[in-house]
């Protein structure tokens, strides 16, 4: 069996597969790329040929325009393609609509690149499928024991309880425009909230895309109005940066909320003037990361980005051979959009 870094190794543009001659989620334009999911730090424009799930390709086209790549190949989950002796297939990652892990098989060696993933149930995409492998390449966004996400249902229930307690206030829910916003809307619907949810314009494109792929978001309307009182007691979903911004002045005594795993830490929530932190994440928390690693039981663990140090230490304590790849260019989605 060949050494793992003969099949996959870090390079300035990102993870590179020499025998297959392609990159995974490259951060600069390359001739051939396989993309895990549509978030802008993973899916970038300017590559020659791009392979991904059809949902990911649709997201890239909507966000980056028709010429985002010279050629595209849509792969279904489980479908296998072969290039120069390397078998490539995509399996669900459970992160957002269309997200995938990339499975590489070559000369008896199996490497799985997780991309961004979570283990929680998500009404907008199929769940993560663990795949046995020699090397598991994982993200570590919430790779610290402090990050243990609470139950989604309880978090979303907080919004409804808050609406009861403060019925005159506009509840502004900050959520990333791709993935989080749609999941949040679905979770609200599942808890019986069937009124119109107002949305910031920046969310329109992805909301429409999710609807096109069969995900019902219920009645939505743009958050534009002339009178403040129109929004008393309403839910408005908007990108995180706008909940602190000039844009909020149109609402009646807004109550800023933010749906993110980072809300677990009080200082982060207070820093952003969030009154209702919603600890809802599209990434695996500490328990889920460690459980997944034990479940897959890889020969080696590679950590691509996030809080690598703690996960390395945990691996050491559990007899797992781990290393941090220190790849740059993949944000932890705190400030901007991901």
């Amino acid at each position, binding site marked *: 069996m060949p050494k793992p870094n003969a099949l996959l190794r870090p390079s300035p543009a990102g993870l590179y597969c020499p025998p297959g001659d392609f990159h995974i989620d490259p951060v600069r334009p390359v001739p051939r790329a396989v993309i895990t999911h549509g978030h802008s730090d993973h899916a970038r424009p300017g590559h020659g040929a791009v392979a991904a799930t059809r949902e990911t390709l649709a997201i890239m086209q909507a966000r980056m325009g028709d010429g985002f790549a010279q050629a595209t190949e849509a792969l279904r989950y489980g479908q296998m393609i072969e290039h120069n002796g390397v078998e490539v297939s995509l399996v669900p990652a459970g992160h957002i609509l269309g997200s995938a892990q990339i499975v590489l098989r070559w000369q008896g060696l199996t490497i799985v690149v997780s991309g961004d993933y979570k283990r929680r149930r998500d009404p907008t995409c199929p769940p993560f499928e663990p795949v046995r492998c020699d090397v598991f390449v994982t993200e570590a966004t919430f790779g*610290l*024991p402090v990050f243990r996400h*609470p139950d989604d249902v309880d978090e979303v229930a907080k919004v409804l309880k808050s609406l009861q307690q403060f019925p005159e206030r506009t509840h502004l829910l900050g959520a990333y425009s791709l993935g989080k916003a749609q999941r949040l809307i679905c979770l609200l619907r599942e808890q019986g909230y069937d009124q119109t949810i107002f949305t910031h314009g920046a969310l329109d494109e992805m909301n429409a895309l999710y609807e096109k792929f069969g995900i019902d978001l219920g009645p939505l309307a743009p958050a534009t109005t002339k009178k403040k009182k129109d929004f008393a007691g309403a839910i408005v979903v908007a990108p995180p940066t706008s909940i602190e911004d000039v844009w909020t*002045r149109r609402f009646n005594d807004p109550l*800023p909320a933010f749906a993110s795993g980072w809300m677990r830490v009080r*200082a982060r929530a207070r820093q952003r003037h969030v*009154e209702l932190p919603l600890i809802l994440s599209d990434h695996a928390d500490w328990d889920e990361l460690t459980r997944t690693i034990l479940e897959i039981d890889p020969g080696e663990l590679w950590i691509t980005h996030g809080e690598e140090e703690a996960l390395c230490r945990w691996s050491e304590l559990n007899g797992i051979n781990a290393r941090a790849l220190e790849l740059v260019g993949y944000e932890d989605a705190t400030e901007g959009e991901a």
Partner: protein
Amino acid sequence: MRAFSTLLDRLSFTPSRNGKLTLVRDYLKETPDPERGWALASLTGALAFDAAKPSFIRKAIEARMDPRLFALSYDYVGDLAETVALVWPTKARANREPELSEVVDALRSASRREVPQLLERWLDALDPDGRWALLKLLTGGLRVGVSARLAKQALADMGHVEIAEVEEVWHSQRPPYEDLFAWLEGRSEKPSPNTLGRFRPVMLAQAIDEALDFAKLDSRAYAAEWKWDGIRVQAVGEGGRKALYSRTGDDIAQSFPDIVAALNFEGVIDGELLVVRDRHIAPFGDLQQRLNRKTIDGKLLQQFPAGIRAYDLLLDGTEDLRALPFVERRRRLEAFVARIRNPCIDLSPLQPFESWEELAKLRADPPEGDARLAEGLMLKRWDSIYEAGRPRGPWFKWKRDPHLIDAVLMYAQRGHGKRSGFYSDYTFGVWREDSKGDRALTPVGKAYFGFTDEELRRLDKFVRDNTTEKFGPVRSVRADNNFGLVLEVAFEGLQRSPRHKSGVAMRFPRINRIRWDKPSREADELSTLESMLNR
């Protein structure tokens, strides 16, 4: 204790007073006794556990977790209670979640040796928010932005009564306050306040409206005295019990053992607590050295001796004087102070005057001595009874005009709550000469009110249009000899402050006017401010 931990959690993120009031009021309405009583006790600072030490928390987590993983976690979060609350390894429902009353009872009766075990058991049984609340309770610092007065206001709101009624009976009640809740819910009579040494709610004044009020007021109907710049207190000697209360009824005896030891009378005096040396009062800054102290040493008492300047007599012996007119109470106060001959207590002198004009002159230019340090004047109707709260008319306060300086806007920060969309917190500075003789601006204060909504919009736009740098939520604004926004800042007083780079700290600074017309180079110098200190 789930409802309690949810309450603390929401309070810690809610900046507005009204928001906090709603949260506490709803909690008190929906939660049964005795849990809500213990919650109220912890919010009003009436709960302390001597046997529980913060070091127990560290020891507990060290036994359960790899030290390196803990160190990485603590570094990230920055707060011990919160880190432990988050990283504590969860056992699959090891124990039933404890009730708040259970935790309080156990902690009050436990010895130091028993606490670690209790702590571990509870940490195992609770979820992260519960653990956080538990650890905050244990360390005695809730720090969720709720004062004792706010909690009592929420209680009063819940019972649809005035806060003065709650304060009247508060000190005769013990946690978990079952009688108090029974009364507020209409299930029983109001509890009797008749506890010796209890707090009597204080009478307060409204600010006088110079334009409107003087025309209607008869100067002969009013007494005038100086409003001393200290802390309003109530000194009590009743049936052997001695007490010293702040104006909101907080017991401050711990910080002023010198005063309490000297309370040699039977009665209740309403006065101003100050630092007094040789019968002369000291500025507020001196009193600040004595406030909120838990341990007092002889040196502190010597350097900053405390005294009370008496304004009013509420009880003379056992006789309640509050229904008597001020003129009568004043006569009794004068006799009382003369009789008790207390070294810490002197009489606040009345200021004689013939007309409002004469009084206005005195206010603008006070006579030599203590009056120069006063905050302003108090006007009290001779026929006024002593009633709790802030009635309009019998008593007025007439504060001295604030100081004004012209300062340059240097930094702006985002506001909170309704103002989080605006840069509404302004740091301003004055000119200072450095060692080379160059002028540079040095920050001297921050203000976040005093301007209208329309002015706020203009200020916010100015900040956004003239940002030179951003540091998180703070923006630095262009401010130099040729460009800058001048703000006329009003403030009550100035103190020396080694903590501030400029060496001075302002009291109650606010924006008075925005001087769009004034060039930045004409703003005031630090030396102007410093001369105010030396007056």
